């Protein structure tokens, strides 16, 4: 069972765009469902808000962090020898 799982994953790893498209399709379906349920009046939340918000904010988060890294990143041994960052990590 594990072997098959690993093989499947290896296949996906080689075809990332496939995964992405599948995800996009799932997202589209969810958006549609969301909208439908809202129209049907099952709940009164703002429709499709979660998805868009999540997408935008995540992009913003990563880009913001990327920008921040320019400011805050230092060499790994910056705090050495008073930190473990640059120490050999292999432990028993």
């Amino acid at each position, binding site marked *: 069972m594990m072997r098959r799982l690993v093989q499947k994953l290896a296949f996906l790893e080689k075809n990332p765009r496939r995964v992405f498209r599948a995800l996009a399709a799932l997202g589209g379906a969810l958006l549609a469902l969301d909208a439908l349920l809202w129209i049907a009046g099952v709940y009164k939340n703002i429709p499709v808000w979660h998805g868009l918000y999540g997408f935008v904010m995540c992009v913003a988060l990563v880009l913001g962090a*990327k920008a921040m890294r320019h400011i805050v990143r230092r060499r790994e041994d910056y705090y050495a020898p008073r930190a473990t960052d640059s120490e050999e990590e292999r432990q028993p």
Partner: protein
Amino acid sequence: MIPLIAPGWLLLGGACLIPFIPKGAARTSFMLALPLFGMGLLWLIPDGSLAASFGGYAITPFRMDGLARIFCLIFLIATFLSALYAWHLRDSFQHVSAFIYAGAALSALTAGDLLTLFVFWELVSLGSVGLIWARRGEGAWHTGLRYLIWQMASGLLLLGGALFFFRETGSLAFDAMTLQSPSAWLIFLAFGIKAGFPLLHNWIQDAYPAGTITGTVFLSCFTTKLAIYALARGFPATEALIYIGVIMTIFPIFYAVIENDLRRVLSYSLNNQLGFMVVGIGIGTPLAINGAVAHAFCHIIYKSLLFMSVGAVMYRVGTAKATELGGLYRSMPLTMIFCVIAAASISAFPLFSGFISKSPILSESLGGGYWVVWFLLLFASAGVFHHSGIKIPYFTFFAHDSGRRVREAPMHMLLAMGIAAFLCVAIGVYPQALYAMLPFPMGDYTAYDAAHVIGQLELLIFSALAFGFLMLSGLYPPEVRGVNLDWDWVYRRVLRRAFERIGGSVLVLGDKVWGYVLGVWGVVYSVLARFYGPGGLMGPSRAAGSMALWTAILLSLALLFAYS
């Protein structure tokens, strides 16, 4: 009738016995039996408290109620899982430290007064630092020292607060208080340090990646959640907590995205999760508090599971740096599955434990009219998914293949992870069991209504899409080695340098001053010695002639006085 021994005391007593049990199966079995036995005790102990007097103070060394009970339960579970995970370990020092740590944390949960709380609060610090020092080496030593200073600072603030509290009220009872007196502020700060309030948080990200593989699993369970418990007990519905909590949820996720050390990523994410709980406590409605408590409960399980899976990788590969890992799903598929389950839980996928505990907090923030808070929490939720839900499993087990081919994690680790993973799913599927144990009745609340489920799924899927988009477009920042400066830079670098400079110059100055004093003394001495030495004015060999002169002078002076 309360049984004489509280679960925490049981663990502490057990910790004292551990060194005397031969290493190996006997000792590990004993260590596993302790929390199980503790759960049995917890089952037997009814609600109530034990009053006592010590040193002239009325204290309540033991108190059991709904809030304490559920925390006790999860602490015992966490102890069991962590001990199981550490089955292979043959280090008495770590064993004792870990059980003192767990036992003290449990005892602190059942402390009914500030004095008892302080006692165990400090013991928690002492026990836990052993798990960092046990890694051995210069870096771990200094990291542990920094950690210990922070923890002690928290304990001392608590001590100061307790003193003030006793002065103000004449009692030491630990119950809800308001931020209106020095005592409350001091205690609030003490809890705040352990809960990782903004600017008081760095010890978490500093120390947890520096612990031993098994030690960090213990660490991730107790200290911060003890603080959450204490806040829930002492400062429910304190509005300041809402804003503090929101900040806690937001800023760590930025760091988590760019951090290379996966255990530090988890530490940032831990901080972010604490933020949700703090918000819940700050909102303070029964449902919100329940949410915070439930979230703490679930969080302990999935966070320790995450640390366990990363730890298992570390155990086999020797590092937890994202740059060194990748493609490990081939070698450690089971670990990967458990990691993904934990990631799903922390991301609050429906049917996983995080979902059922985070929802009450989110809906109460909305219900309480905290719109901005709700927006930010939502952002934080998406961020959590991004770094904990995707980044951890992705960079460990997928991404580019690091080429490392190792064995699957050892059996006992898999077992511990399996149990934890099972609990994550079980709670997610059947939340009523957990809801029933919460301090306040949950009524007919359910997280599984359509709006919640669909909204959450949407959020997560689109976050994943964003990740995919960024990865495919190459915008995603590549993992690189390095450390990121956080607030701790101020004291680890700036203050340290300043202190060294100032301290050094003060010492130099002191030596100089002392040197001057000695120098002046030397000059005075030599002058005196010359004055009084042989041949000096006051020296021993003075002729009679000068004496006669002196006599004459004195006589004339006397006469002058007399005649004047």
